């Protein structure tokens, strides 16, 4: 069994993501902020477990629905939330938004709004680690929809040929925007595509943090040992649909949604930790109280953060500031 401190850490990350997302949705529903928001509610387990195996030297790329990946990797909550609401205190000074979160200090190198677009970039990050004899690994998170786009296939092939230290982690939430997965692909298990490129692939229950951790542990060890890439398909579900607040989710069958809500991975993991007996309710409550405070302060910071200065339109286009 995974040691209890690691599992507590996983739960803490899951809870942090869950609380942040809950607060964000609250702000939007209350009309306090008006931004396009892609909720990752329901997918917390995956990056929370994987991040337990990563350091700040390891890098990730992710997608527009990737705030959970960014938070789990350790990006400061106040800056992440400020970025999501477009303020100058955000990770990109308000110029990226939720689709372009980044924090190079903790290895969040690129978030792509182009489906699958950051997967080839992950290869480059891994290549640099390989060429500098570092044992750092790169995790690239993408969805089931992205697993059909050409760039992902090119990247998988190249990673295998070059034996790159990359984890291709497909967060299969069964929907690409408004289209069910099985209307977009013929194969039931996405991970079988891995063998087509010459790398190992595995499918796990992405809502079981311990299972994700186990698969990722093997993959990270392989990568660090110079044995190359691994494909992990982590099966999960989007509890809030595509764009939060806009999506009525009518294309997602009601029984399916209800079952997913009932199987909510966050309280489920909490219950399991208690059941397994190594962690007490008061330890969990302490973590939760700490995170509640952290999230509240982060929201306060974000709401108080100024909107970007008009001159910021023209900065960071190039290294030099250019006029209109």
């Amino acid at each position, binding site marked *: 069994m995974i040691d209890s401190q690691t599992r507590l850490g996983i739960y803490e990350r899951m809870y942090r993501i869950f609380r942040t997302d809950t607060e964000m949705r609250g702000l939007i529903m209350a009309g306090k902020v008006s931004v396009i928001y892609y909720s990752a509610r329901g997918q917390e387990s995956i990056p929370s477990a994987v991040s337990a195996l990563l350091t700040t030297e390891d890098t990730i790329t992710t997608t527009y629905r990737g705030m959970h990946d960014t938070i789990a990797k350790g990006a400061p909550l106040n800056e992440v939330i400020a970025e999501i609401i477009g303020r100058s205190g955000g990770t990109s000074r308000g110029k990226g938004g939720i689709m372009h979160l980044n924090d190079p200090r903790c290895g969040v190198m690129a978030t792509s709004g182009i489906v699958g677009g950051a997967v*080839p970039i992950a*290869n480059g990050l891994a290549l640099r680690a390989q060429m500098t004899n570092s044992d750092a690994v790169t995790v690239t998170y993408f969805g089931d929809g992205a697993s059909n786009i050409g*760039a992902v296939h*090119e990247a998988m*092939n*190249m990673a295998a040929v070059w034996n790159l230290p990359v984890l291709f982690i497909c967060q299969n939430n069964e929907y690409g925007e408004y289209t069910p997965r099985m209307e977009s692909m013929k194969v039931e298990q996405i991970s079988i595509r891995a063998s087509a490129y010459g790398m190992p692939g595995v499918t796990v229950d992405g809502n079981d943090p311990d299972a994700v951790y186990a698969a990722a542990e093997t993959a990270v060890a392989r990568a660090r040992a110079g044995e190359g890439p691994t494909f992990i398909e982590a099966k999960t579900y989007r509890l809030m649909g595509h764009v939060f607040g806009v999506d009525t989710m009518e294309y997602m069958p009601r029984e399916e949604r209800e079952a997913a809500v009932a199987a909510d991975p966050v309280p489920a993991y909490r219950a399991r930790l208690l059941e397994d007996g190594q962690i007490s309710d008061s330890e969990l409550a302490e973590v939760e109280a700490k995170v509640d405070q952290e999230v509240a302060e982060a929201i306060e910071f974000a709401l108080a953060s100024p909107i970007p200065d008009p001159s910021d339109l023209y900065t960071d*286009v190039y290294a030099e500031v250019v006029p209109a």
Partner: protein
Amino acid sequence: MSESKLTMVQALAQTLDQALERDPDVFLMGEDIIDPVGGAFGITKGLSAKYGRERIRETPISEQAIIGAGIGAAMAGAKPICEVMIADFYAVCLDQVANHAAKLRYMSGGRTTVPMVIRGMLSGGLNFAAQHSQAVESWMIHVPGLKVAMPSNPADAKGILTTAIDDPDPVVIFEPVALYSVRGLCPDGEHRVPLGKAHIAREGTDVTVIAYGTQVPLALAAADQLATEGISVEVIDLRWLQPWDEQTVLESVQKTTRAVVAHQAVRRGGFGAEIAAVIQENLWGTLRSPVLRVAGANTPVPFATELEQRHFPTVDSIIDAVRRTNT
């Protein structure tokens, strides 16, 4: 500094060798670039034997993966030089170039940067037909975040590439294959062409011809011909297309009052339209003729030589345009 007479191929080969030697973070990625072939045009011959196949890295035919790998490596501290074998293939990886490389600095609020170079070959005029003959610089110029250049001679090929390698932003360099075997004096050591700096290739007083790439030697030949008719043509070789040397161009046209822009690329929506707009915005009362453009026909490039020759501008096209600025 001492110079040698080199072809553009030799100048580029030398530049890459010198950069690889000087800077351990520089490495190359592209299709077929390793020895013994050393690239579709032989530019990287000898490099993989000298620097190894990690730094001279052959890739699968996967432009999106190539550019993406360059982006990621650059973000992590390397200085990759990627190759797009034929510029038309940029269409295959335009997402990586335009949506990622060009924008990551901006989208990250300046926290991540992409100091990479991409070299692409313009293969027009060589019978390669429609999908291997396009000049696509306007695609790149139109994307804020990219720097763009096109040399017309060996020394500038070296100077632009050297400058680009050290530039903190993604630089897209277009090399005209039709000029690859033309010799020119090239400095032997480290040589740079400052970002955004044009070169006045020939001084004149009656009309300014702004050109780049293959059109520079054509413009110079046209100027020679027109000189015998008493028309004095100033030829500016832009070299850098984004940023471009507006100051040098405007000073010249202020002096001559007439301007012609010449590029190999298709006329419609070409960079010449942008240059012409900037000239007329700034020199409206001074110009004594509309700014005229000499450019490729608004067609795909045909295969048959007789047709292909009609697609691209010639010396006569430039001469004709210069004469029309005086009517």
